[in-house]
């Protein structure tokens, strides 16, 4: 067994390596692809749980991990609280989505490309872990591009005209985001001469007085680029098509994980690279706050008018990513000790990852079993698809924010944080958006159970257990994080504390 401080690099390199071996396996041992992919992500999950345990209890990760032993010159991987938390979320939810996907993809993809799907999936997982772990701005750029390409590819792998167009739109807009990011990195390098986040942070604090404009431009480009990539409200245009037309496992992983990882990267950079003085002078957090508020309201309003179930879920993702950014926006640089909102925003990453991927899986199950995509066709399917619709009740309760579900906990923390920084208006926003969520989630399951069934003579394909079990587990997790969120919140409080310093 290698020592624990090697785990991060073994995880990333191993996942990328297996991604490249997957085509070979597909040529030689076709039916090994699925078990190997599941094995790889399970090992990664165990490793990330070990990492999170070590970060909380031990001290193996206090020093960064330098590639090739090039201390202070090379690329650094650093597992802090936030990145190890994100690793556990990525691999936990990713594993369940993969198990679900095996059943679903047999129907949605043609035989020829199914091996490549696992390549892309492992590539996506490896690159996302890399994004969470890396402490180097340029390395982050490389991982970001791998995530962008593989995320587009798991949409366009299902070759129909909608997917291709959505994927191209996503690719172009994410290339725009990447361009902005790279320009911002160039500005930062111009001022500081470093790529390492810690060193950038130290040097930039000295350069605030001398180059305020450069830092300002770098920071706004950074927010724009990550805003595009994680679909912050006015920059969200690519999301609905991309997430709605993709195969259901891809939708689950894109909506559940990919848009979050950019938010985490933004938190890392914003709080560690940019000095607190510049955040105090420029109302950047206020801008993020207002963008996220508009996103929460308009995302819900757009979601209400959708007919397609997956498209509704996609618009709802725009609203929900708004909560994550609201946590960042409610952070007040004048009062850095009030961190409750930030904790709530980061907690929502976990909660939304769990519940939105679950809802997309349920949408996938409904399409798989009955072929229904439109919401108005769902009347009466509750009697035929009992378990998926029961779990759907839990999921939508969590979306609305009813107590004992995960969504309630994150909204509670956000609301408390808003009161702590004297912005009670945003408590109103949270309550209003809960009502809006209720308006479009509740009728679906009420109609599904109570309406007259229109599907007497439609045959419902039986749902295989491998598709049902992940959904049930995620439903259980939603309730677990609603009832007993204390360990997660403990980790996040330490994470925020170490970020603010």
């Amino acid at each position, binding site marked *: 067994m290698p020592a624990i401080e090697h785990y991060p690099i073994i995880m990333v390199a191993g996942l990328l390596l297996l991604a490249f071996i997957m085509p070979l396996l597909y040529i030689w041992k076709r039916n090994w692809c699925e078990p190997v992919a599941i094995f790889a992500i399970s090992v990664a999950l165990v490793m990330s749980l070990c990492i999170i345990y070590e970060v909380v209890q031990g001290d193996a990760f206090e020093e960064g991990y330098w590639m090739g032993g090039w201390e202070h010159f090379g690329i650094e991987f650093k597992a802090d609280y936030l990145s190890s938390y994100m690793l556990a979320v990525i691999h936990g939810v990713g594993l369940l989505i993969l198990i679900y996907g095996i059943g679903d993809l047999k129907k949605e993809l043609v035989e020829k490309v199914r091996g490549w799907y696992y390549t892309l999936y492992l590539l996506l997982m490896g690159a996302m872990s890399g994004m969470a772990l890396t402490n180097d701005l340029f390395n982050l750029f490389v991982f970001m591009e791998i995530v962008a*390409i593989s995320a*587009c590819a798991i949409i366009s792998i299902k070759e129909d005209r909608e997917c*291709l*167009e959505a994927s*191209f739109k996503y690719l*172009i807009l994410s290339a*725009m985001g990447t*361009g902005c990011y790279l320009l911002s990195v160039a500005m930062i390098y*111009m001022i500081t001469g470093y790529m390492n986040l810690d060193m950038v942070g130290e040097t930039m604090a000295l350069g605030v007085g001398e180059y305020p404009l450069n830092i300002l431009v770098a920071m706004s480009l950074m927010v724009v680029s990550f805003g595009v990539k994680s679909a912050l409200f006015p920059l969200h245009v690519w999301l609905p098509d991309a997430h709605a037309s993709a195969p259901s496992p891809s939708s689950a992983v894109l909506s559940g994980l990919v848009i979050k990882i950019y938010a985490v990267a933004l938190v890392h950079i914003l709080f560690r690279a940019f000095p607190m003085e510049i955040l105090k002078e420029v109302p950047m957090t206020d801008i993020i706050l207002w963008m996220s508020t508009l996103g929460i309201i308009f995302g819900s309003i757009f979601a209400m008018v959708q007919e397609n179930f997956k498209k509704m879920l996609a618009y709802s993702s725009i609203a929900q990513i708004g909560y994550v950014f609201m946590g960042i926006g409610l952070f007040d640089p004048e009062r850095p000790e009030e961190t409750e909102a930030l904790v709530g925003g980061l907690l929502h990453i976990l909660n939304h990852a769990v519940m939105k991927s679950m809802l997309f899986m349920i949408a996938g199950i409904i399409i798989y079993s009955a072929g229904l995509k439109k919401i108005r066709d769902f009347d009466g399917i509750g009697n035929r698809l009992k378990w998926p619709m029961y779990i759907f009740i839990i999921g939508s309760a969590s979306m609305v924010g009813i107590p004992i579900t995960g969504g309630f906990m994150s909204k509670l923390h956000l609301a408390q944080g808003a009161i702590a920084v004297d912005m009670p208006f945003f408590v109103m926003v949270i309550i209003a958006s809960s009502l809006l969520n209720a308006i479009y989630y509740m009728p679906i399951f009420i109609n599904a159970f109570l309406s007259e069934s229109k599907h007497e003579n439609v045959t419902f394909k039986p749902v295989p257990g491998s598709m049902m079990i992940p959904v049930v587990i995620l439903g259980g997790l939603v309730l677990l994080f609603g009832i007993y969120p204390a360990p997660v919140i403990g980790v996040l409080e330490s994470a925020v504390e170490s970020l603010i310093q």
Partner: protein
Amino acid sequence: MMETIESLLHNYYYFIAVVLFVIGFHTMLTHSNLIKKVIAMNIMDTSVFLLFVTIGYVQGGRPPIMDAVTPPAGVDYINPLPSALILTGIIVAISVTAYALSLIVKIYKFYGTIDADEIAEIRGREE
């Protein structure tokens, strides 16, 4: 005013890089031809690469290659780091371009056009 112009003239390479960036950005978002979008994406990436490389340049510097002969004192090497990073950046840009082009080939197969507006029209008619 004069000061601004003077500093622009002094740092004209940064200025040109930013102008290229804006050209790429604008073309990418406003033109409806998909191939033009990809070209604009490349212009945008290239502008950032140029900016990066100019950051690393040292006036009168030598290429940073280790030689058997030690250079005379007072000769500076240019900063190799931005160039090395940009090499990676170029590879990334190539792979994105290749992927985008292959998507365009497929889109042309399905829609019979590579114009974003016409594609939107076709999709609108379908729904």
